[in-house]
């Protein structure tokens, strides 16, 4: 069966490459968009305890929503295809990044911030030189979680016409063709594991030396 799957890829390189490309593009874009929204939002929310709590609660509710439900809900509203899938995946990636950004900033010890302020750093300097570096490990853990969820969710985008490796899986199930199914399932599993590994390494690299 594995041999058949490999044979399929070999005979349909273009199809496979496109699906893989779409999958990666969709995942990367959703992650980038979610980070671009959630990190600034988290920076603002972390300043005020009430807002931070509300944001974390909202994010927690967001996290519990089944991914497929979110993707499915995009369809009646936005239609099918790449864009609606992208929107849904961005929404899925938002909660862990938001929660971790807030948690990371709140986790910086108040004495350190007090010392920085007392030494004459402006608010921006404190954020850039002290708070963000110290919050980076936690924020990155959130990015890592979100990345894996997005790659996983992008598989489901196949159901709303988003493309990606999920197409092979759905086709394989529909046609009861195991090799086809494997053409989707195995690469996407490898992709997911690879993403986790990549972000894990990044997380380790970006953790300031004094904190390890």
């Amino acid at each position, binding site marked *: 069966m594995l041999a058949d799957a490999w044979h399929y890829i070999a005979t349909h390189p273009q199809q496979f490459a496109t699906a893989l490309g779409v999958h990666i593009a969709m995942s990367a874009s959703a992650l980038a968009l979610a980070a671009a929204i959630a990190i600034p939002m988290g920076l603002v929310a972390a300043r005020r305890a009430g807002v931070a709590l509300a944001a974390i609660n909202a994010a927690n509710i967001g996290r519990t929503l089944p991914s497929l439900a979110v993707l499915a809900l995009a369809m009646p509203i936005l239609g099918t295809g790449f864009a609606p899938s992208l929107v849904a995946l961005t929404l899925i990636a938002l909660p862990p990044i938001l929660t971790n950004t807030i948690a990371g900033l709140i986790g910086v*010890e108040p*004495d*350190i*911030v*007090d*010392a*920085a*302020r*007392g*030494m*004459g*750093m*402006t608010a921006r*300097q404190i954020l850039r*030189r*002290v708070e963000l*570096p*110290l919050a980076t490990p936690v924020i990155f853990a959130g990015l890592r979680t979100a990345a894996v969820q997005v790659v996983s969710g992008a598989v489901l985008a196949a159901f709303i016409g988003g493309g990606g490796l999920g197409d092979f899986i759905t086709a394989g199930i529909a046609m009861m063709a195991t090799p086809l199914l494997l053409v989707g399932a195995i690469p996407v599993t490898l992709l997911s594991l690879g993403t986790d590994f990549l972000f894990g390494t990044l997380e380790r690299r970006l953790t*300031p*030396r*004094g*904190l390890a």
Partner: protein
Amino acid sequence: MISIRGLTKRFDGAAAVDALSLEIGAGEICVLIGPSGCGKTTTMRMINRMIDADAGSIVVGGRDVTRSDPVELRRSIGYVIQQVGLFPHLTIAENVATVPQLLRWDAPRVARRVDELLALVHMAPDVYRDRYPRELSGGQKQRVGVARALAADPPVMLMDEPFGAIDPITRASLQDEFLRILRELDKTIVFVTHDIDEAIRMGTRIAIMRAGKLVQYDTPQAILAHPADPFVEAFVGGDRALKRLSLLPVDAFRANAPPPANAPRIARTANLRDALSLMLSAETDCAAVVAADGTVAGSLTLATIREALVVRA
């Protein structure tokens, strides 16, 4: 150097600092002390505008702090807090270099200054420059904290219970070191503590505060000899006569007369309280004052010690 007039700060309607007025001369160490909630830390934090006053004025080195930009003001005032607040993600050198870098000194100058300061606080630059805060003990961290505060050579330093989180043994040696450092430099210090013994040891003048008001502001000897009211008397402790003795050096009361044979020996650098303690435990009334090399420099009698208290009064 620092002139505080009518300083007031209210929290929820209650006055944490109430019309406080105080003059601190250049080169002095002014210790703010009092029970919890007396407003000493609030007062200190108003000097570098970490908290803004409701009324009154603070003038530092001729500049009204309310008219200065807070950020710039803070870069010209050293700031040391109890928990130190070293940046864990930066090396010791980078920590110390913080304010000079904010002031945009050039790199070679910063590096020289960092090494100079580490040496000053007795932490070998070659060993500690590239270490991280988590590798240091509490006492070492606070030394770095002091070095960091001194980095841009500010004329004024604020210290909020800097040695409070450190064990008593290390604390005593840090206090001595800090006094030694101050003797070499020319700084005006505002030092907050709740420990009367630390205040007596460190302060040029002590400001005793209570419920936001200044109760007595004078030299340690004067406060010990003449507490202004029962509160101060209780605050400095029932053993204030002994505390006063601890401020008086043996060498100043040494008589040139040779001591009797078998007299117990006391170093000339010790204080009268140590001498008294020695004589009481040896059951004599005369001690031999010796120099560091062991030679006898003179003698000291119990009567002299007793008179020392009376004369000072």
